[in-house]
């Protein structure tokens, strides 16, 4: 294990220099390593969240289940939701964005490499903080949506962890969003105009803007929840005139953009995978880009469709019904464009394509059921039943997770230089596809037969027994598929086929460099002449905009001297201070003393680390 060496310094302490070993990973600012850290962590949380789901399904396999009591069940379903959303889908998307954005735009790293590392460590520590609640009095048990006044009045301590844990994770997301926006806008290779960017990059940009504007809203809501629980404030206190609906508005103003945050990167991945495996250009590039932007913008105008039963009144409900229906239009545009990409192609069914097709086919279902929710009088029946659970699992699992796996299988060779097994990959896909549909398909039926959500048990004689049992079987099949993936990963590392730079005959820049890429990514920053520039360099296809682009003011490419950002301790140190401060708040909430000092210590650590970070140069010469 390499130890930190000493180096001529301009910062407070000697700069770490290790590039390998544990120390290397803990001080890395390389976007590729950080991407891997995000990916591994997200996958571990996927397994944990999946285990929570298995327990939920075991409890619900039959009436009057005795596997989980009511309190534990409430913790498990809350943590399952929090885990899958904040600790799996979002960070896995960020993992792929981290690794791929610089490679796809022709850059050496992201705009703020240390901020990037900071985002990862804050994410990891936030997730650990949240899970530590299981051992410190109980995990959050008020649902991932934390409706007040239940969330403010629950005497169990979990919701305090909820208010703080999500806050920590929000900091990581916000920092990441700023980083990716600046990277995409400002660090493109010469000739890489916005309309030549791969759709994955566009979707990452829109996602980052959504994060930028949505995270602060939930931050406010979480602060208010925390102040009510820990400091007896009155934001949601009924006796003081507090309004529970305020929570819902703030939460869903964040919450709806949040679901687009989860799906857009996956949509971007699908938009890049389909052309490669159909061996033809993306159909309707501009339409896809604009549809993505439209979804991002319109996504701000639909939040109250989560509140149709709250009593906002027919006028408000009508307005949101309309906006919700119309957001289906850009979504439909995307689906048609994906079909158009496949049409007329030369389709090869490799695992990345299978998962991308899984995305498209499952997202169609989830999208259609979503439109049925927009029909307000019908939604009054559908809401809070398993029909809704079916919808969002179809879009988030059938959609986002399948899309993310498509990205993993697609870019795995680039990350690690080895292919993931083809046969095992296909087995993984089919197990996951079948298991997924077995688990969530019948939920449509159960919902329409009146089974509500978030119930730890149901009695006999409701007619729900058979489908619940089937769903539990399905959950185990999904679990099996996850293990299959693990087997594939291990096998790939041990004896996976070597990948080479361009195993899929790809179209975009990342396939022009070795697998895995050197630390500096590109020996020479490329000059981009076209969309799918790499493909055209390979095949000299006749493309309308074939002339070399004028070199954009700014990105003038390398001067021949590659300088890379140097590793640093400070992102990790700054990150550590934050959960420490959070534990201080927990102490105050439990009235055990010492809270304020712990908060001060945490904040001081972060402050000093940021100070050290600010005065050390990005690159040690």
């Amino acid at each position, binding site marked *: 294990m390499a130890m930190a060496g000493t180096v001529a310094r301009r910062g407070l302490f000697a700069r770490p220099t290790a590039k390998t070993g544990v120390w290397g990973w803990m001080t890395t600012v390389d976007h590729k390593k950080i991407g891997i850290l995000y990916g591994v962590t997200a996958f571990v949380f996927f397994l944990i969240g999946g285990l929570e789901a298995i327990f939920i399904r075991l409890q619900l396999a039959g009436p009057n289940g005795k596997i989980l009591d009511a309190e534990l069940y409430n913790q498990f379903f809350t943590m399952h939701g929090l885990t899958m959303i904040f600790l799996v889908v979002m960070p896995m998307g960020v993992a792929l964005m981290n690794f791929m954005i610089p490679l796809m735009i022709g850059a050496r*790293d992201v*705009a*703020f490499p*240390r901020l990037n590392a900071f985002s990862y460590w804050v994410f990891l520590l936030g997730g650990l903080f949240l899970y530590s609640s299981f051992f410190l009095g109980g995990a959050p048990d008020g649902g991932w949506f934390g409706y007040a006044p239940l969330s403010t009045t629950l005497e169990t301590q979990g919701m305090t962890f909820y208010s703080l844990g999500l806050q920590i994770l929000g900091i990581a997301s*916000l920092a990441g*969003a*700023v*980083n990716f*926006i*600046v990277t995409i*806008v*400002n*660090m*493109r290779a010469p000739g*890489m105009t916005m309309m030549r960017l791969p759709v994955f990059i566009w979707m990452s940009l829109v996602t980052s803007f959504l994060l*930028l*504007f*949505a*995270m*602060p*809203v939930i*931050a*406010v*809501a979480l*602060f*208010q929840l925390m*102040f*009510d629980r820990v*400091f*007896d*404030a*009155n*934001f949601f*206190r009924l*006796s*003081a*005139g*507090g*309004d529970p609906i*305020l929570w819902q508005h*703030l939460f869903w*103003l964040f919450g709806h953009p949040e679901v687009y945050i989860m799906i857009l990167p996956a949509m971007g991945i699908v938009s890049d995978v389909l052309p490669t495996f159909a061996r033809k250009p993306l159909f309707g590039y501009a339409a896809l880009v604009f549809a993505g932007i439209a979804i991002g913008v319109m996504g701000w105008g639909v939040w109250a469709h989560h509140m149709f039963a709250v009593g906002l009144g027919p006028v408000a409900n009508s307005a949101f019904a309309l906006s919700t229906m119309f957001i289906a239009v850009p979504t439909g545009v995307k689906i048609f464009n994906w079909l158009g990409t496949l049409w007329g192609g030369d389709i090869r069914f490799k695992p990345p394509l299978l998962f991308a097709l899984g995305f498209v086919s499952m997202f169609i279902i989830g999208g259609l059921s979503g439109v049925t929710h927009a029909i307000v009088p019908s939604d009054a029946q559908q809401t809070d039943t398993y029909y809704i659970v079916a919808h969002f699992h179809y879009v988030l699992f059938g959609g986002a997770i399948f899309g993310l796996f498509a990205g993993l299988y697609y870019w795995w060779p680039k990350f690690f230089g080895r292919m993931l097994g083809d046969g095992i990959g296909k087995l993984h896909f089919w197990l996951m596809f079948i298991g997924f549909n077995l688990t969530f398909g019948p939920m449509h039926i159960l919902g329409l037969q009146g089974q509500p959500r978030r119930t730890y048990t149901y009695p006999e004689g409701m007619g729900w027994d058979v489908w619940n049992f089937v769903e539990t079987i399905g959950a185990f099949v999904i679990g099996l598929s996850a293990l299959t993936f693990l087997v594939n990963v291990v096998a790939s590392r041990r004896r996976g086929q070597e990948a080479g730079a361009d195993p899929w005959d790809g179209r975009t820049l990342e396939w022009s460099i070795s697998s895995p890429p050197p630390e500096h990514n590109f020996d020479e920053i490329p000059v981009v002449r076209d969309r799918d520039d790499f493909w055209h360099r390979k095949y000299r296809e006749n493309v309308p905009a074939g002339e070399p682009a004028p070199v*954009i*003011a*700014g*990105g*003038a490419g390398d*001067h021949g001297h590659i*300088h*890379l*950002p140097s590793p640093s301790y400070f992102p990790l140190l700054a990150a550590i201070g934050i959960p420490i401060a959070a534990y201080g708040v927990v102490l105050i909430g439990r009235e055990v003393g010492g809270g304020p000092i712990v908060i001060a210590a945490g904040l001081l650590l972060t*402050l000093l680390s940021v*100070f050290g*970070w*600010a*005065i*050390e*140069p*990005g*690159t040690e010469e």
Partner: protein
Amino acid sequence: MGTHEVAADHHTSTGLDNTKLAMWGFLGSECLFFGSLISTYLLYRNRVLSGPTPHEIYDIPYTSVSSFVLLMSSLTMVLALAAIQRGDHRGLRVWLLATAFLGMTFIGGQIYEFTTFVEEGLKLQTSTFGSSFFVLTGFHGAHVTVGILMLLMLVGMSLAGRLDPVSEGSRKVELIGLYWHFVDIVWIVIFMIVYLVPTN
């Protein structure tokens, strides 16, 4: 701050410096943050089921003075930036310290105002008005405090010669200046909505 390898040496696709772009993005996010807090305040300022009402407790003349102080700090911030842009480090430090001092005066004024309110019966726990008022203005004060720390850090960096060359130093001062002006503008909005707009 330390990203010089990208910001200074390499040109950027838009011609705008990375850190400036980042700061604008962050400030955009902060608009939503304060917007949510202000919205909450607007919902709750007339729901006073116990304790003093806004009308009873605000001391507009007093708060006007502290607002003026903060506004003046934006002026000194502009002067600080002008100083470094012409290479005048001493001038920079004078005006940075002036800005920090005015900021500290504002914070001192806030603290005094808060303690007075508490004595007069308005606490975080008193009413929805109390909660939303203190959380809104408290977060603003925290932002000002962070700004003051950053200003003092700039003074230290200037003394240690870390703001050379002038182009680099100007960039960093401008960055903090952006943040400072934003915090000032937010205060203008808060002052108007919270203090000046009449309540029932």
